[in-house]
């Protein structure tokens, strides 16, 4: 391959069953890519596009070399179907044996010497005379790999090549691939990061845009360690079977009367001197009804939230009912805070104490910034489960303040949720995050929203940034 393969705004239609949207991607001759992503995001489809599959409806695809080697389940299935068809098409009254393996490999082979060597290495020698269609799935796969590798491809596309291979064959294949990296650019589709060979230089990440459409969202250079580990975490969060850990049974939050609202603000007003920030706001949050609160800077979003959390001194001069307490009747703020999980940029700034990542999560049980009580074994166990969910188990004992901004945000969300509070307040949870970290945070929030009893109050600058499942909206306007 002499020149780069370029996909510019490419939209592909796969028999109207699946689409890829607006792909922009350049593969330089010296690069080796892995395509990864969530289920149904179109990883195999994107790989197949490079082998000429699908109708390009928009955009341009240039630089595709003449000889492309493709190994995938789809190509494998197609080949087997073709073989079976030969049988059906046989008009002579002879029992067809189908094409033998020998012919499948050597009839149109660019490098027979290499093919022989690989047949040996893949342990196919004793199968050469057998009909291709009689082989097991694993054996047909190996045949396809030998065909592709010995075809002197200018671009080699391997879709899940390591699936179902035994340990020795896997090692042999990896070694062979490593030996041809100078001459053959490769694109591998992999579902798991830990299978990624060392020679891979770049990773392309796809997301599901809708049920039948995928898009390429991130392209990461492997040299970029932080982006690479974030992508790993994102894939982990999107694909893990791990669930949000259960709360600590020893630290039960008192039960609330299900017939009462969680929060009821009556004519809530915040003012400083003569400046009115919030003017006679009436707002009720019923259990189970998620809310989105939006409004421009200075519209009093944070003020309203702090009336609810008890952080605003004027919560004592307002008519506020929260979690069964009419404020200002001898309750302490810790009695209020136990019902709330809270995440905001301000919290992240305030979280300056030197604490390990694990303790940041555990501090959510105590509503404290930092840890001032001895944690129980069970709390430690729950924190470990959260770290596993976040894909951050390796960072359990690292100091919180040494983490990336995005990782800190993930931990603070886990901290807010660790006790499964009746109300989870996410105050601009994506503020200040780049796109990848936004995706990470949203993936975690979605995970949290799956089947938990927590009522979510999502606060965002822009009313149009919505989260699935939120149906009530309160938009504040700037006063004066």
């Amino acid at each position, binding site marked *: 391959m002499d020149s780069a393969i370029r996909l510019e705004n490419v939209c592909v239609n796969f028999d109207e069953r699946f689409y890829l949207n607006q792909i922009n991607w350049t593969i330089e001759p010296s690069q080796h890519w892995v395509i990864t992503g969530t289920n149904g995001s179109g990883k195999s489809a994107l790989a197949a596009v490079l082998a000429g599959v699908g109708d390009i409806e928009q955009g341009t695809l240039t630089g595709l070399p003449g000889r492309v080697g493709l190994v995938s389940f789809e190509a494998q299935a197609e080949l087997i179907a073709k073989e079976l068809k030969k049988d059906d098409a046989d008009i002579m009254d002879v029992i067809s044996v189908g094409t033998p393996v020998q012919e499948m490999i050597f009839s149109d082979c660019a490098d027979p010497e290499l093919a022989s060597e690989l047949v040996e290495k893949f342990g196919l020698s004793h199968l050469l005379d057998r009909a291709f269609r009689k082989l097991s799935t694993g054996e047909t796969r190996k045949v396809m790999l030998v065909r592709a590798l010995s075809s002197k491809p200018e671009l080699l596309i391997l879709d899940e090549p390591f699936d179902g291979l035994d340990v020795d064959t896997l090692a042999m294949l990896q070694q062979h691939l490593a030996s041809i990296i100078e001459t053959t650019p490769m694109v591998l589709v992999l579902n798991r990061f830990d299978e990624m060979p060392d020679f891979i230089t770049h990773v392309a990440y796809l997301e599901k845009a809708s049920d039948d459409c995928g898009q390429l969202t991130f392209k990461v250079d492997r040299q970029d360690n932080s982006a690479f580990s974030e992508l790993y975490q994102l894939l982990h969060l999107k694909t893990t079977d791990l669930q949000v850990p259960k709360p600590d049974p020893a630290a039960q939050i008192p039960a609330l009367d299900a017939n009462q609202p969680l929060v009821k603000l009556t004519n809530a007003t915040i003012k400083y*001197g003569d400046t009115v920030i919030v003017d006679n706001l009436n707002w009720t949050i019923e259990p189970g009804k998620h809310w989105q609160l939006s409004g421009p800077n200075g519209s009093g979003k944070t003020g309203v939230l702090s009336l609810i959390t008890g952080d605003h001194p004027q919560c*004592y001069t307002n008519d506020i009912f929260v979690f069964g307490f009419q404020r200002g009747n001898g309750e*302490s703020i*810790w009695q209020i805070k136990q019902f709330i999980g809270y995440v905001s940029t301000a919290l992240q700034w305030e979280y300056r*104490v030197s604490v390990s990542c694990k303790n940041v999560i555990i501090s959510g049980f105590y509503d*404290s*910034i930092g*840890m*001032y009580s*001895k944690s129980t074994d069970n709390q430690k166990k729950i924190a470990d489960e959260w770290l596993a969910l976040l894909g951050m188990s390796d960072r359990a004992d690292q100091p919180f303040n040494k983490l990336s901004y995005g990782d800190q945000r993930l931990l603070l969300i886990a901290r807010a949720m660790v006790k499964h509070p009746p109300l989870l307040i996410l105050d601009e949870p994506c503020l200040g995050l780049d796109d990848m970290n936004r995706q990470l945070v949203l993936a975690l929030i979605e995970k949290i929203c799956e089947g938990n009893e927590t009522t979510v109050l999502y606060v965002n600058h822009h009313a149009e940034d919505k989260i699935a499942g939120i149906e009530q909206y309160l938009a504040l306007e700037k006063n004066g």
Partner: protein
Amino acid sequence: MANYFNTLPLREQLEQLAKCRFMDSSEFADGVEALKGKKMVVIGCGAQGLNQGLNLRDSGLDVSYALRPEAIEQKRQSWKNATENGFTVGTYEDLIPTADVVLNLTPDKQHTSVVKAVMPLMKEGACLSYSHGFNIVEEGMQIRDDLTVIMVAPKCPGSEVRAEYVRGFGVPTLIAVHEDNDPKGEGLALAKAYAVGTGGHKAGVLMSSFIAEVKSDLMGEQTILCGMLQTGSILCFDKMVEEGIDPGYASKLIQYGWENITEALKYGGVTNMLDRLSNPAKIKAFDLSEELKVIMRPLYNKHQDDIIDGTFSRVMMEDWANDDANLLKWRAETAETNFEKTPAGDVEISEQEFFDKGILMVAMVKAGVELAFETMTAAGIIAESAYYESLHETPLIANTIARKKLYEMNATISDTAEYGCYLYNHACVPLLADFMKDIKTDVIGKGLSDTDNGVDNARLIEVNTALRSHPVEAVGAVLRGHMADMKKIV
């Protein structure tokens, strides 16, 4: 009014001075119960008044503010502080007669007039609380027999008292009951509940006496905490500039140096602070500090003697009566020092560099901490109190210098501390004149040269042993252990 301490027989003086006990967290199991439903009225809405009030209210207690009529009429800052935070504000006449507890959080200087105005309005059997015992101990204020008198003194600036509470923690707090005024025997229960209300119980509470608090607090703030840092700043800066070091660099080395080196003190005492130096530098710092201790010991003794016998408070009160003439003059002089006037240069100084190039500063901190501690304990103050009022608070004060130099330090501390600090500085600067003549940039500004890196093993062992066996290190290890248990940042 006579100095209360001086009216006591020696036996009782010694007994009161020696009061200080680190309380167990189980002693706070009743939480704020003793104050629940009681009306707490705060007098004064400065940093301590406002922030303690915010904490107490957030702990479920009933807090309001009594201000003087002119503060209310003119909508002064104290009025704004209280009303903007949603507190009820009223005059003494409005609120004091309804109060179960009156919290006097005004500056020392106003105590006499405030207490005289408030006392007749207080209802039978109520409680009067202080955050500092100066008025009772030094001015000998007599409180009505039916009133309970307690002290709850958070050992941090008001802003910290609030910030730590919001974090879910608190600041170390000293409590005391004035035994002459505990008619119903409820003083301790009230003081404990108050400490819980401000979050202090989470960070550790010391049970002390009015006398021990006043005599140790005055000594600490005048000498090592503020006085030594001010004198050290001025002398080190002038020496560096005299020796040709860039003034911007010198200014920065000092402004942030105290904070950096005393951070090591906070974690591991004097030993750890000196362990941050190379071996030759450590020996150098040790020798300098020994020299400093000999020169300064009479000054420390004089401060302690004047505090114990009441001379200090008498002289300061004369200045109060003279419209603070000396305080204001000294404050203006401090603003005119070269250190204060030279802004920190735009140079990078690494954390280790503050130690390596500030050997003399390390020696000054060591000498000041040890002298203050030795002098206090020699005067009958128990080691725990002496530790808190010397070593423990030094990093807190050093932080204020890092923020805005001596101006910030003197603005943050009480007028009493500020007055004592200037008094110390005026005596200490000339006292160290000869000593400073021999000082060169190897111990302040440039650090030891590479050729000075040899040490004698026997001498090093001697120095290490001396450092580790000082009594402030023994009590410090125990108290820091308590603190670490509580503030478990594992």
